[in-house]
């Protein structure tokens, strides 16, 4: 694959380096920046993140990144908190999000009785099914990817992958040029690498 101009949006959230490490393993490299000019010009934009929704949204609104991200026209990939922030609203801090997707973000509630000893956060490897996006291909149906999250995106018209934890939810979303995964492709072994490659091919 030829070298692409990939931007990883820099904001007040952790886990940004791991995404770039994954790109380096694919012989690509992302530039970690918050510069609007560079973000607009990029071939691909990655919006990663681990953090708290309401403080992060406040930061994105104050810096103008919120408005910028919504208007991007190249392929954009939100990861984990990045995906949740692209939804319409999050229960984490009761905050309105970017609204790129219509789906809402809710907190997992343990079933009662909790006969299977389920835990919050969901931490570990779970399967992606009902795949419906160019991010995926048939070889990825039912494969395991790595998740760490306490909040989830409900199923909806933008759902591009479904995972079952406590109940089925959206483990990936897509609308037009906006793609998002709740799981961490950068930490999901060869399966995650395939998904990142598919994104880079868009």
């Amino acid at each position, binding site marked *: 694959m030829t070298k692409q101009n990939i931007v990883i949006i820099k904001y007040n959230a952790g886990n940004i380096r*791991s995404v770039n*490490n994954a790109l380096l393993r694919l012989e690509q490299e992302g530039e970690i920046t918050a510069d609007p000019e560079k973000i607009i010009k990029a071939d691909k934009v990655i919006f990663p993140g681990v953090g*708290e929704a309401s403080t992060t949204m406040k930061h994105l609104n104050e810096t103008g990144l919120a408005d910028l991200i919504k208007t991007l026209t190249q392929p954009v990939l939100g990861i984990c908190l990045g995906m949740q922030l692209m939804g319409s609203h999050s229960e984490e801090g009761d905050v309105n999000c970017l609204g790129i997707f219509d789906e809402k973000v809710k907190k997992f509630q343990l079933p009662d009785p909790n006969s299977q000893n389920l835990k919050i956060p969901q*931490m570990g490897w779970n399967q992606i099914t009902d795949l419906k996006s160019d991010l995926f291909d048939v070889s990825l149906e039912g494969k395991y990817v790595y998740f760490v999250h306490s909040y989830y995106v409900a199923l909806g018209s933008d759902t591009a992958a479904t995972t079952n934890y406590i109940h089925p939810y959206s483990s990936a979303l897509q609308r037009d040029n906006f793609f998002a995964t709740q799981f961490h492709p950068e930490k999901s*072994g060869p399966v995650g690498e395939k998904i990142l490659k598919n994104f880079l091919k868009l």
Partner: protein
Amino acid sequence: MLAKRIIPCLDIKDGMTVKGIKFVELKTVGDPVELAAAYADQGADELVFLDITASHEGRKTFVDLVHRIARHINIPFTVGGGISELSDAEALLNAGADKISINSSAVRNPQLIDDMAKNFGSQFVVVAIDAKKEETGNEWAVTVNGGRIFTEKRLFSWAREAEQRGAGEILFTSMDHDGVKQGFANEALAQLSDDLSIPIIASGGAGNMQHFKDAFELGKADAALAASVFHYNEISVPQLKEYLRKEGITVR
């Protein structure tokens, strides 16, 4: 369904794996990155690197090593050993660690758990607890310094406190079972799993494949960690996963 996790643990001294590991054919004897990559290829779900170096120079070597691990390994990994301040954790986060584990330092200063969770998120903070069963009753004494020093803390109440302070996972090692290869401390594990709503990692006692099955079924553990059975190739990760799958346990 969420899979049960299998976690090989690597002890690191001065940036190298400790001597005697005869797992697979490695080009560089003692290179943790090569060993970790081999485990990742075999289907290990996560890795833990424990720094057992005491010296200041060794610490710096370890941070450099974490950089290399993060660059080359495509599964999550936890690092532990000698983390006693926020700045230690921050250096490891910046080097690319997905999680840190704290043990003695959290016992001595429980506020450290709150501070780390607040600064880096609960998902980053694994609280490791080494405990020994008391001779009478159902209580376990929390120990520090590799089981050498007994503390006033008790396993179940300390684990609950760690959860309340913001721990994302508990890594429980039974000092009675560690190294004995007679299975994990399943009763205590099950009680932890029932008491807490965060994931529990079982550690100490793996000797055969059934021990892992028991840790998941009887001990209700979310993950199981082992070192020597993997390093000395007594059990391989693919063989273990195949066995667990046949026994009806969800694995990746």
